[in-house]
């Protein structure tokens, strides 16, 4: 093997990538010549000095500046996206309508209305019952108002009649001054109570007719006599109450029937069709609401960022303490945050030359995230190299 061939094989030999035969030939040449050995050692020394050339770091100020600059860039990008939307005024409302539509479909009408899941069948029955009840109650109120008006009217009639009767009992016309035309008319009526009654009734008839016609159902005619009307109203009132009670009982029995079997199947059906609504409800009813979860996650992320910044500034002890607190937080942080925290802790321990601690942390992190073991293997290698130095 000449020098050129030997030199070409040195790197492969140092990397351990020479095949069995080549390795044997190379080692024979290496041991047979001092010149070859010297060249080999020179290659080794170049590699050794190069590998140890890791003591150059960028200043923390530069890293902070880069971080701030990038945050500004990302923020500016987000702003430009909104501006682009604003430049096309048709697109923004179209998107809003599409989102609302999707929300409506995905969450379900009932969910939006009631905020909890009520079976469809029960909802329908309740709605019908409520509308029936409202109609009946309205009718009853109208009737009660009509009866009250009639009672007031009757009292006024009684007053006029008794006044007529009192005038009829006057003993002599001599002791009293000459009556006026009006009083004379009244006296005439008083002398003939039956006639007075009929005159008054005739005068009230259109008013009564109007009032009764307004409230009475079709088929019930008005009577001239107040007592008869009152009876009719009383009957009507009673009938309405009975009807209302019957309706109510019917609705309740229908509802009770639904409660037993149908309600269950309807509930299952509706919960299947609006599965997403059910899951949303489950989220709402769980101990932590989604918004709270987002808040907690954001809090953890902010804390992680602060720990990273702290490490930049070289405050490793504080960084380890705070990352440990975050690792032990309840509810526990996500795996990705934990991975980052372990990485930070490991780097800090390595910086503090507590290599055993750093290795322990990396081993723990590897168990937690086996799919990222290559990352921690690299870190473990770094720690071993530092330890050897």
């Amino acid at each position, binding site marked *: 093997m000449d020098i050129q061939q030997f*030199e*070409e094989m*040195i*790197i492969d030999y140092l990397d351990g990538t020479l095949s069995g035969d080549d390795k044997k030939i190379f080692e024979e040449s290496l041991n047979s010549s001092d010149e070859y050995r010297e*060249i080999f*050692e*020179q*290659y080794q*020394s*170049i*590699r*050794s*000095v*190069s*590998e*140890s*050339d*890791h003591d*150059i*770091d*960028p*200043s923390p100020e*530069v*890293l902070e*500046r*880069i*971080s701030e*600059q*990038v*945050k500004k*860039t*990302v923020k500016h990008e*987000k702003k430009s996206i909104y501006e682009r939307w604003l430049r096309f005024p048709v697109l923004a409302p179209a998107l809003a309508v599409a989102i609302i539509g999707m929300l409506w479909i995905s969450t379900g009408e009932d969910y939006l209305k009631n905020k909890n899941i009520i079976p469809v069948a029960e909802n329908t029955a309740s709605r019908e019952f409520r509308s029936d009840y409202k109609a009946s109650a309205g009718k009853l109120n109208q009737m009660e108002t009509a009866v009250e008006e009639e009672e007031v009217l009757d009292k006024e009639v009684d007053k006029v009649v008794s006044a007529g009767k009192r005038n009829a009992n006057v003993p002599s016309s001599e002791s009293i001054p000459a009556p006026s035309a009006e009083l004379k008319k009244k006296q005439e009526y008083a002398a003939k109570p039956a006639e007075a009654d009929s005159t008054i009734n005739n005068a009230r008839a259109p008013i009564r007719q109007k009032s009764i016609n307004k409230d009475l159902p079709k088929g019930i005619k008005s009577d001239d006599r107040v007592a008869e009307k009152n009876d009719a109203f009383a009957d009507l009132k009673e009938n309405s109450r009975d009807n209302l009670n019957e309706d109510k009982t019917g609705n309740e029995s229908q509802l009770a029937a639904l409660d037993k079997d149908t309600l269950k199947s309807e509930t299952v059906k509706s919960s299947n069709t609006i599965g997403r609504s059910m899951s949303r409800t489950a989220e709402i009813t769980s101990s932590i609401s989604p918004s709270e979860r987002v808040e907690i996650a954001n809090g953890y*992320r*902010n804390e*992680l*960022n602060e720990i*990273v*910044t702290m*490490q*930049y500034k070289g405050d490793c002890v504080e960084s380890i303490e705070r990352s440990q607190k975050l690792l032990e937080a309840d509810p526990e942080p996500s795996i*990705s945050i934990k991975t*980052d925290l372990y*990485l*930070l802790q490991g*780097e800090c321990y390595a910086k503090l030359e507590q290599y055993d601690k750093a290795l322990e942390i990396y081993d723990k992190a590897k168990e937690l995230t086996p799919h990222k073991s290559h990352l921690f293997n690299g870190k473990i290698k770094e720690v071993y190299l530092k330890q050897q130095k």
Partner: protein
Amino acid sequence: MGKFQKGDTGYFDLLLNRHSKGVYRFIYRMVGGNSSNAEDILQEVFIKVAENRMNYSKDKKFTAWLYRIARNHTIDFIRKERYRMHSSLDKNIGNEDGTNVTYLELVKSDDRSQDEQFHNTMIKEQLHLKMNGLKEEYKEVFILREIEGLKFDEIAVITDSNINSVKSRHRYAFKELRELLLSTGFFDEYKKTGEV
């Protein structure tokens, strides 16, 4: 990277923390040890990463993607500024105790009482000086492989070439570097490392 793509800038800080040192070392060595230029390029690289984050797809390796951006920016910088990577022998090199000594003073100094760290700094400085004399295409492969420890296939992606070319450039880099270092006394100094 996925979460940063969605706009979570907290994850960018993590990326920056993980990769900034390696990328910085690569840029620093490529521009001949000028920290001010290296920091400017580093900033440009990470801003470029942020701006182009949506172009990154998960089937690519992030490290290779990042170093490719860094490499392109560095080469652009070198070409644009007509950068001449020849360190002056009068260049100040830092000492651990805060004092500054020139390389000439170090070379002239035969004081064996220098501590080991100081001795190592001198050897490294010799290597860097000669590394700057390498062709760019050899130098970048050498830095990525020997200093940053990347695999040949990753370097092939970064430098937009095939793996055999990368291996070949790597061998040439070693060969030339050895020849350049022979005249400096680097290897003799290296042998003394254990004795200091």
